[in-house]
């Protein structure tokens, strides 16, 4: 022993420890495991590698991925990441800590979660936020469950067909096994009146899957008149400039924190957020941090309202979630601190002008038709004259991930502040060449 860098034990250590325990060998510590179950074969794993070999192995795998300029959103947005964020979040005091159970030596984690909760409240305009969820789609699924819990005895949730496909799929999965009825519809007013007596909630996007900013005027009144809750699924970056869920009259806001500077990461880790009006505070799932004082009167922070949670309520808990996506919440909290109101406005301003520039330049090629008239911020769809799949794959060969085909045969584009005019011109030029 002593030959593997993560195990400190020498042969002498092991011998001394076994003696203290009063057994002869390490295998004697497994005398209670039936002999058939002790694995005697050789594990079908590669032979141990050195650090350099592991590094080389992953470098080779990474090189098998194509490096592309990303012009697609659909739930994952390629925004810029300020370098202070990975630097700070990789501090081992944050990275290697557990959930803050011992609050006296976890004030760092508890404070940033309190800051996160505050920022989520200020972005959404709502009263309270939890410590975060796994991702946006699971936050939407938890909101669906929360609607059912808050309205009691009602068991139907209406989803706008404008929600992103992966959000609808996740909510459907959560609902299926619990027995909640999910209706997906473009006609919200019709859906609300058709299901009014059993309607627990309505989930709508702030920006739909085609990138259009939705006008939710009057919707909250209709939903509330039916005795249900309104949930808005939002892009928190866009909430820097868009009308807030509170202003639209929503009861719950959910979404994914990924646009707040989290790298694409091939889909995760991201972070879900969830905020609600204070009437529903006790039904909010997940961890929540609250402010209090110690005996000396010092301000400090604790996990609070824990009696709602699974480790106490067990099968009667609001949710089974027992962690959050803490480090990614820290990531977003630092992002929002660096950006401030003006930075977030500028990010959105750049997204707006660059995406409109691409939109207009693509239309000028004569190879696309406009699909929607509504306002968009960074994402839009067009109807291509050439087959959508062929367009996407051809762009891929030229080094772009763009023109993702949608279910309707349109293609989806997204432009963030990351790509300047030159890169956009390059994309448009490639599109023109393809058509020739």
């Amino acid at each position, binding site marked *: 022993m002593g030959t593997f860098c993560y195990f400190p034990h020498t042969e002498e250590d092991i011998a001394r*420890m076994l003696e203290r325990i009063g057994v002869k060998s390490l295998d004697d510590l497994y005398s209670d495991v039936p002999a058939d179950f002790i694995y005697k074969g050789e594990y079908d794993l590669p032979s141990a590698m050195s650090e350099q070999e592991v590094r080389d192995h992953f470098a080779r795998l990474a090189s098998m991925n194509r490096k592309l300029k990303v012009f697609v959103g659909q739930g994952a947005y390629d925004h810029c990441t300020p370098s*202070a964020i990975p630097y700070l979040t990789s501090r081992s005091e944050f990275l290697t800590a557990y959930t803050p159970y011992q609050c006296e030596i976890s004030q760092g984690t508890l*404070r940033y979660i309190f*800051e996160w909760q505050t920022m989520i409240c200020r972005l959404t305009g709502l009263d309270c936020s939890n410590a975060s969820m796994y991702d946006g789609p699971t936050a939407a699924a938890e909101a669906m469950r929360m609607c059912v819990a808050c309205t009691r005895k009602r068991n139907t949730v209406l989803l706008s067909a404008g929600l992103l496909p992966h959000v609808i799929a996740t909510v459907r999965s959560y609902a299926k096994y619990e027995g909640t009825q999910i209706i997906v519809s473009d006609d919200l007013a019709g859906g609300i009146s058709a299901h009014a007596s059993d309607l627990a909630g309505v989930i709508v996007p702030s920006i739909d899957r085609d990138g259009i900013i939705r006008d939710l005027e009057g919707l909250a009144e209709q939903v509330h008149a039916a005795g249900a809750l309104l949930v808005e699924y939002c892009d928190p970056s866009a909430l820097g400039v868009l009308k807030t869920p509170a202003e639209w009259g929503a009861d719950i806001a959910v979404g994914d924190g990924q646009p707040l500077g989290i790298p694409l990461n091939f889909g995760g880790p991201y972070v879900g957020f969830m905020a609600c009006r204070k009437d529903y505070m006790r039904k909010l799932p997940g961890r929540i941090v609250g402010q209090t004082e110690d005996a000396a009167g010092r301000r400090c922070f604790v996990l609070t309202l824990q009696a709602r949670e699974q*480790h106490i309520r067990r099968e009667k808990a609001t949710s089974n979630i027992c962690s959050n996506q803490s480090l990614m919440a820290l990531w977003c909290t630092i992002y929002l601190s660096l950006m401030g109101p003006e930075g977030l406005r500028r990010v959105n301003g750049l997204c707006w002008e660059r995406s409109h520039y691409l939109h207009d330049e693509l239309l000028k090629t004569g190879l696309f038709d406009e699909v929607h008239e509504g306002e968009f911020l960074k994402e839009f769809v067009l109807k291509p004259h050439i087959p959508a799949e062929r367009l996407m794959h051809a762009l891929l060969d030229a080094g772009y991930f763009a023109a993702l085909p949608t279910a309707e045969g349109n293609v989806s584009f997204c432009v963030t502040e990351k790509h300047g005019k030159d890169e956009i011109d390059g994309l448009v030029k490639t599109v023109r060449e393809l058509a020739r």
Partner: protein
Amino acid sequence: MKYYDKLIFELSRPGRTGFSLPAAEGGMPVGGKLWRGSAPELPEVSEPDVVRHYTNLSQMNFGVDTGFYPLGSCTMKYNPKLNEEIAAMPGFTGQHPLQPKESTEGSRAVFEELDKALAAITGMKRFTFRPCAGAHGELTGLMLMKEYHLGRGDLARTKVIVPDSAHGTNPASAACCGYEIVVVKSKADGLVDVEDLKPLLGPDIAGIMMTNPNTLGLFEKDIKEIAELVHGCGGLLYYDGANMNPLLGVARPGDMGFDILHLNLHKTFSTPHGGGGPGSGPVGVSERVLPYLDIPHVSGFHGNFTVMLRALAYILMLGRENIRMAGRLATLNANYVKESLKDCYRLPIPSVCKHEFVFDGLLEPNGTTTLDVAKRLLDYGFHAPTIYFPLLFHQAIMIEPTETESPETLDAFIEVMRKIAEEARTDPGLLHSAPRTAPVGRPDETRAARQPILKYEA
């Protein structure tokens, strides 16, 4: 650790900025019904303000890199630094989750390699990687249990059996899946009572959720009989992988008859806990559940990919040689601590433990509680064990040392635990008033819950 009292909002000055972006040309509409009335009140701070603030916050935190973290059931093992380097490789982090397959060969190879390795380690057939945490894995696993029965047209199975020693997430996850919970009792030796189990089994049982070793750190040695009984009644066996670490390189749940299992990559496979996440809870299944594996869509895309990169890096470092020692050394460390403290702390179940064990408070508490012991440990520079769980013991102290702790660290911990036992006898006030060296003392939690303050207001 020093006390630092600022919140980022309190550093804010109007007009100060911490971003570096080109100016926008101003095409975006201002005002109108779709736009917010006033800008969100986010902090206005410079980059140096931000870096110093969060560095100060970090210094009020305890992590695995700071010191010994014997938190039972949480497997706070060392988080290798190579993992972080791999997880930050731009070739992985720059990939969009919806990119066409031909552009993501490397990332897909990571999934395949990890799937194959976890199957070899656990004896399961294949894994889904969508679940983002252990509890999320449980939820997914129970969905698969339901799909399996539905797939056979068996609609009568509405109940899931959970031992009384189970983690609270087990019944909560089963309830989230629409199952009714039936509790099976443990015997005095801490193991599931097979005689109590038998009458519970029938055509309404979907399956049983087991943690093995269980939350007392004891191997459920009747597992073979339990598996036969549960399978015999048409149910499935679910393995809660929270306690997989002592079996790492020793035994495979798949060989014991488990049909569905979740792993916690952030426990057994060395990925950092991140103050509560991101984790990863992949779910593996046996042959009979395989056809249903991809049905539940439990998270947005492909799960927490960069966590998987870390876990695979760890497995490649271990290799088939070192993995054989991982579980064994974890078990060695736990038994060593247990045997060294059982004359000071009440050991309700004296048999050999696996990776963790449970004391039921001090032998001579002298008016002190388990909470006092935990808080006093903080004064000596150790994280506290898990306390008041499992619920079977009123003063539970659950200790899990993990294999990456040296005997010297364990000896230092043992010495302090013995000293605290002595202090309880001679000067219990030291325990009641602990911690005194932490940045803050014990907070008023009743006040926090009665009048919740959940956000900053100037």
